[in-house]
């Protein structure tokens, strides 16, 4: 059952120290910046964060990292032109890193949400990222066994949501949001607009409300 939170602080209430937090977004598109800011204020620490990148500049995820709240990053591409906060923590040995191919990151979260215990994946066979993992040849092709990535919490950004928690996204800001929503015990969405129940086209709902525990409206102004 979805709850509409009045504030981003209410939305992130109760996130525990040591939690695994899935954070949506690819670059800044779909990045739930207001929820991350609220999480920084909320104070949970020793987090494992799963996100495609490891922060840009000094805001959002980078600010969470800079605040020393993240013990481990699971991501596909930490190193970017402006990922200096992560780079510094990593070189100082103050953060753990698990690098996962981008599609495996998505598929492992999809597996968590779909009740799949593990899957044989062709990506990364014969590479350093498959070292130590079980491999198998099936129907003439080689695969690596990959395990689900479950979140305690997912923080995602969407375009519009209704009181039942149904969500739609905008363009490539969709990216990881719908997958992470399925993979976390508690999914928290920031949306640009909360619309009335019945206003979203049932054929076009991307994330059904069953996956969304809390939504909070964050106007464009507030995120800029």
């Amino acid at each position, binding site marked *: 059952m979805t709850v509409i939170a009045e504030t981003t602080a209410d939305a992130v209430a109760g996130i525990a120290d040591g939690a695994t937090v899935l954070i949506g977004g690819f*670059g800044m*598109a779909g990045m739930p910046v207001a929820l991350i800011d609220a999480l920084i204020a909320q104070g949970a620490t020793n987090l494992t964060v799963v996100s495609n990148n490891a922060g840009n500049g000094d805001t959002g995820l980078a600010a969470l990292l800079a605040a020393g709240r993240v013990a481990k990053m699971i991501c*596909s591409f930490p190193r970017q032109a402006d990922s200096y906060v992560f780079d510094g923590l990593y070189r100082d040995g103050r953060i753990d890193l698990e690098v996962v191919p*981008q*599609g495996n990151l998505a598929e492992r*979260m999809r597996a968590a949400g779909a009740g799949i215990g593990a899957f044989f994946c062709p990506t990364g066979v014969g590479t350093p990222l498959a070292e130590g993992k079980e491999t198998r040849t099936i129907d003439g092709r080689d695969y690596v066994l990959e395990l689900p990535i479950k979140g305690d919490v997912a923080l995602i950004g969407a375009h519009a949501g209704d009181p039942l928690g149904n969500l739609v996204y905008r363009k490539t800001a969709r990216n990881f949001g719908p997958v992470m929503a399925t993979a976390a015990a508690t999914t928290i969405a920031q949306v640009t607009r909360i619309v009335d129940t019945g206003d979203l086209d049932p054929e076009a709902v991307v994330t059904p409300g069953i996956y969304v525990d809390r939504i909070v409206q964050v106007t464009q102004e507030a995120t800029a």
Partner: protein
Amino acid sequence: MTIAPPTDRTVEHLDRGPLTREEMAATIARDIPDGSYVNLGIGQPTTVADHLRPGSGIVLHTENGMLGMGPAATGDDIDPDLMNAGKIPVTELPGASYFHHADSFAMMRGGHLDVCVLGAFQVSEHGDLANWHTGAPDAIPAVGGAMDLAIGAKDVFVMMTLFAKDGTPKLVPRCTYPLTGLACVSRVYTEHATFLVGPHGTTVVETFGTGVDDLAGRLDVPLTRIGAS
């Protein structure tokens, strides 16, 4: 490999110099069949888009969740919610569609794309690819979608210079850099020549400003010619 080479005999273009980057992009664009679904990797491969034939029906995929990607966006067309995998603002063409990351990578992993064009540090004579890590001990590892792209199309084309800045060949008997994928590349486009690579080794398609014999002397990879049997 599913796309036939553009010639049934190796062609040596000796009356000219090596290809420019623009010419490399144009050559790759020429070799992508009409109606193909194509993913262009970040960096140089992105420039192939500028040379696609109007009306070719080629549809571009970007792994962050879109088919029907148009040219880079400028000015008022820039939309922070619409970017390519390199995080550059792009546009949407009629007939586009959006999907989430798991669906996008399922599309690649499932072999539905016709062509991926990627950059590389090294390619082996049998098509192994190294393009994500130089193996430098102090480098922060970052793979992104490289390993997914490497296995993510029926044909994987590499676009690279044939030699590194220190003059060592990048088409090699065996990759020394950490691998991105095994036996995944079908074709290598360089400024000096285009090569087919695969289980039967390396075949020269075209040369530019040099000949096959000359190239054979500069590479540690046995080279064969198309139509030479």
